[in-house]
């Protein structure tokens, strides 16, 4: 029988939704599921983790020096917790991608990135080549499986559980070599791009940071999160955490509206799992129309304000 440890992602106050998605993936493997909450003052987060369905035990590793998720101090904690587990799972977010490979190497195993489907406990499906190919990968039996879980492929596990919460002392100490200096959050209080059910995105066509305000305005009217293409981020119209795509965020909202985005393969990779894709582009030949569920050829500078007006 498999025994799985999930490494929780959180910001000290709130459990990231990606953790509940890891629980769904763990359920698909079919196993006893524990969650490790590493950090500083993690009572609240541990309680949130304990409320996820089908979780057995939440293990808290709490120490001052673990306040920020630095792979250098967190990986030894993951390694120390690993004994007895068949699988270690983390989210395929920047947090999980930073931490899990380091822990895997310390355990002497490879790591599987971006699990989108579980075929059996040692057999997984994942995308490569920016999603242009899907591979079925077999992990050798007898060694621990370390993997990251592709958030857009999984529903968040339900709540209603009541796992027991245990504490363990930290296995390692503070790092003398790495100092955490700060985090500048890009977004405001709009819905979170990675979990929003609606996303409005803008591309290079917006032309400036000022012009991008029409995208925000429509998004606010719709209660949607705001995303962008790489070109819009590179040009400085919006902060980096809004980038959607292969090297940005992979998202799966029910509704995705793309304004002035051409539909480069690296962008499409980020929205393949969206429910309905709407594209507005003045070029009827833009590749994004090949994958859009609803397309409209026209000038976004007149269409966006009109949509907003029609929404009342």
């Amino acid at each position: 029988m498999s025994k799985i440890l999930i490494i929780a992602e959180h910001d000290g106050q709130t459990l990231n939704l990606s953790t509940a998605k890891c629980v769904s993936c763990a359920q698909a493997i079919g196993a006893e599921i524990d969650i490790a909450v590493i950090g500083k003052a993690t009572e609240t987060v541990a309680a949130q983790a304990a409320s996820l369905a089908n979780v057995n035990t939440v293990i808290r590793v709490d120490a001052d020096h673990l306040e920020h998720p630095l792979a250098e101090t967190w990986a030894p904690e993951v390694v120390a917790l690993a004994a007895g587990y068949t699988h270690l799972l983390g989210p395929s977010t920047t947090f999980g991608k930073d931490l899990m490979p380091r822990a895997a190497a310390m355990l002497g195993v490879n790591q599987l990135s971006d699990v989108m489907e579980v075929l059996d406990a040692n057999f997984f499906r994942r995308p490569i080549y920016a999603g242009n190919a899907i591979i079925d990968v077999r992990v050798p039996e007898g060694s621990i499986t370390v993997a990251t879980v592709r958030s857009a492929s999984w529903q968040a596990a339900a709540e209603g559980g009541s796992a027991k919460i245990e504490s363990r002392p930290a296995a390692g100490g503070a790092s003398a070599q790495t100092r955490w200096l700060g985090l500048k959050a890009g977004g405001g209080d709009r819905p979170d791009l990675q979990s929003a059910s609606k996303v409005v995105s803008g591309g290079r066509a917006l032309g400036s940071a000022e012009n991008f305000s029409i995208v925000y305005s429509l998004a606010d009217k719709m209660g949607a999160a705001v995303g962008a293409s790489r070109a819009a981020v590179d040009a400085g119209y919006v902060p980096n955490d809004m980038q959607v795509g292969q090297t940005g965020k992979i998202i799966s909202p029910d509704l995705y509206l793309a304004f002035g985005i051409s539909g480069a393969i690296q962008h499409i990779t980020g929205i393949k799992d969206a429910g309905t894709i709407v594209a507005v582009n003045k070029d009827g030949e833009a590749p994004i129309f090949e994958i859009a569920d609803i397309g409209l050829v026209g000038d976004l500078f007149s269409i966006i304000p009109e949509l907003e007006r029609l929404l009342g």
Partner: protein
Amino acid sequence: MKILVGIKRVVDYNVRVRVLPNGSGVDTDGVKMSVNPFDEIALEEALRLKEAGKATEVVVVSIGGDECQQQLRTGLAMGADRAIQVNITAAVQPLAAARALLKVIEQEQPGLVLLGKQAIDDDNNQTGQMLAGLWNRPQATFASKLSVEGDKATVTREVDAGLETISIDLPAVITVDLRLNEPRFVKLPDIMKAKRKPLDVLQMEQLGIDAGPVYTIEKFTPPPQRQKGIMVESAEQLLQELKNRGLV
């Protein structure tokens, strides 16, 4: 300070990769191969550090068969001083790649190792983190800004929540993101010059590397295709369509 830069030979990012009909792999026949775009950015950063007087030598390293010498020559043409090929014909998984890079580190004693954040073929995003763990040194992944002062580096990292800044002691492993810089173009005379720069070959099998538990790919499949949908003529029709589908 010496900087080591990892360079992987990958299918060019402009190529639309196709799965072979029998599911045994992707079609790489006659396909354009290039330096992994993130590795070009890593190399560009190393060259800028050298030009700013913060590094003395830039060494590019690639693990792969003889064909990867082409990408190493591109790196030399961009301005690297030397190249090392770790020769192995079979594809290596990240743990073996990291272990091989660690051997090169032991030999070269770099003050900084710059890698791409991910190779765009397997999209693993692992090698740098593994290397830092095995080397027991600091890591800074997804770097979009880097400054080196003495034996410390300050790195801005592009994380999901925004921009995180950390300070790390060198030596360390830094993996680079797209916005760190724009790589220079290679000029023809530099391609000629690069032919004369040293390129050493190490044999992977002589490094005594344990590849660890190796994953096997049993099948490749093309991704499910999204169908082309409908076109509407106006904002009004668009909204009506969304309402019909219960989306607004």
